[in-house]
């Protein structure tokens, strides 16, 4: 017993010593690491400064959502009003309409815009000649490089009552149809022009994933009597599944963050009942009407929903996709 005790005591002793030494050594190493790598921290500095100035300071600035901000008094000097702005937004007569418009526009955009690039990639994947595939892809990318202002301008030109679409339609109807002033047409115009512009470019990633499939897999399946559709279902689609999952989370998580730029350009005073969404409302109330605190509250409301949505979608997709999610 005694014999065993002595070495164990020694071990305890020595381990104590090691522990005792470890703390300062670890600190020393951290310091030495930062000293040796100081240039790397200098490299990080511009990014950190910009992040603080243009992201974290504005995050701090969102407290004006709970205040009655006046530019003269500044952020701190302005009076606290608690949730007053949130309540007045929730109670305002157009709250429900704007919220529904936002959700409808972006979820329809997702439901239509998400699968089309996948279908397109599957279609392109059937082409045997690599050269032809490349050239077709090149053509389909083109609209992606056109600005949102130009796209919107083209829509106004094409869809105007005296435009080419209406002149084609007069074959079937007498009255020209005023697309841009009909609230019912707004979402279709927004979404389908988005498909026209983005589907080709969005399919790049799926086409690349499909080109990694071993052609022998398809040959073997054909030998076993699998039809084209069966091969797509059992070989191609499973290949695309991980990419689809990640992109879907990103897209669905951004539902409430639907872009300001195109919606604002396509707005006319007539189609506002469908085209007014949260981001355009924030811009008008905040920067055009100068209602800073109220607009910040609306924006914050939007941002919070967005974060919740992102994590919910991530959670659901993770469950459905064998534990593979984004975060």
């Amino acid at each position, binding site marked *: 017993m005694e014999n065993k005790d002595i070495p164990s005591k020694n071990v305890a002793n020595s381990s104590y010593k090691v522990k005792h030494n470890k703390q300062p050594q670890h600190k020393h190493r951290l310091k030495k690491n930062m000293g040796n*790598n100081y240039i790397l921290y200098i*490299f990080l500095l511009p990014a950190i400064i910009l992040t603080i100035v*243009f992201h974290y300071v*504005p995050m701090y600035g969102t407290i004006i959502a709970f205040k009655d901000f006046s530019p003269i008094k500044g952020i701190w000097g302005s009076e606290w009003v608690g949730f007053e702005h949130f309540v007045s937004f929730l109670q305002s007569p157009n709250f429900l309409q704007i919220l529904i418009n936002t959700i409808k526009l972006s979820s329809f955009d997702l439901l239509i815009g998400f699968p089309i690039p996948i279908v397109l990639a599957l279609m392109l994947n059937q082409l045997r000649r690599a050269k032809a595939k490349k050239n077709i892809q090149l053509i389909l990318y083109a609209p992606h490089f056109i600005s949102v*202002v130009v796209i919107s*301008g083209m829509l106004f030109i094409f869809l105007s009552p005296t435009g080419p679409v209406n002149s084609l339609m007069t074959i079937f109807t007498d009255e020209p149809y005023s697309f841009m002033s009909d609230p019912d047409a707004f979402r279709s115009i927004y979404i389908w022009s988005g498909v*026209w512009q983005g589907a080709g470019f969005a399919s*790049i990633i799926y086409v690349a994933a499909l080109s990694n499939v071993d052609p022998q897999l398809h040959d073997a399946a054909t030998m076993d009597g699998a039809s084209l559709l069966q091969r797509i279902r059992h070989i191609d689609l499973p290949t695309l599944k991980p990419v689809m999952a990640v992109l879907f989370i990103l897209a669905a998580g951004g539902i409430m963050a639907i872009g300001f730029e195109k919606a604002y350009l396509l707005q006319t005073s007539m189609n506002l009942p469908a085209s007014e969404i949260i981001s355009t409302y*924030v811009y008008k109330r905040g*920067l055009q009407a100068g209602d800073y605190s109220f607009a910040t509250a609306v924006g914050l409301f939007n941002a919070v929903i967005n974060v919740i949505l992102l994590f919910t979608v991530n959670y659901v997709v993770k469950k459905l996709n064998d534990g593979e999610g984004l975060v």
Partner: protein
Amino acid sequence: MNSLMNNSRKDRMLLLINKVLLIFIILITLVPLLYVLLGSFLQPDILLTQGFSLNPDHWTVDGYTRIFADGSIMRGFFNSILYATCFTILSVSIAILAGYSLSVDNLALKKPIMFFFLFTMFFSGGLIPTYLVVRSLGLLDTMWAVILPGALSVWNIILARTYFKGLPKELKEAARIDGASDFMIFLKIIVPLSKPIIFVLALYAFIGQWNAYFEAMIYLEDQSKYPLQLILRSILIQSEVNPGMISDQLAMAEMQRVSEMIKYSSIVLASLPLLVMYPFFQKYFEKGVMVGSLK
């Protein structure tokens, strides 16, 4: 065997339908673009009623001459080149530097710094607080308001970091044994090796800035500082043709026709540079998307 034959016949049908559909999709993609291009040379009312014309009287470069004569579009064009170039240099440098630092394995505090950046992807202060920051910095109505707020892209930092992580470690170790400092390693070894990623990031940054209008719209007052997209917006969306473009006394109908032509030709002028150039960079766009997909 019979079903196999059936299958292959059905498959061939499907492949044929597939080809027809793809041709249809290509047409849908191209026709609007060609229509605008044609409309900028062929008088729009002729284009509308006849579709095409061989009569040389119907062809004109009026839209273009008026654009060049007026100058506001050309000024916007050069403003856009300036903004996009500065933005590209700034945002790519920032992303490359930060991405490289974060790719170094033994960098202390790497995790918290990464979290510091990533958090901004999920939550942002929003339009108004950002506007107030830009205003309080005195950047309103300057080029910097257009460039700085968006210059930092966390996504680009992640892309750069992913790329740097893929470079062979032996190169750096060999240089270190030779006594090179971190800075020299970055300058002499890493930068020359990272031309592809620099190019990809620069392409995306330039195109993004060239096509943007939002920052310019909210931060710029002075029309002479407007980038091209903002000038286009007033012509295309607000249908405000600068009176300078239609200076001569024109009849109402003629005026409408001319302003229509200006719309077409300004679209062509604004979009052509990118549409002509992108096919040469196809490889890089695809590379950019693929680097991103690796996370």
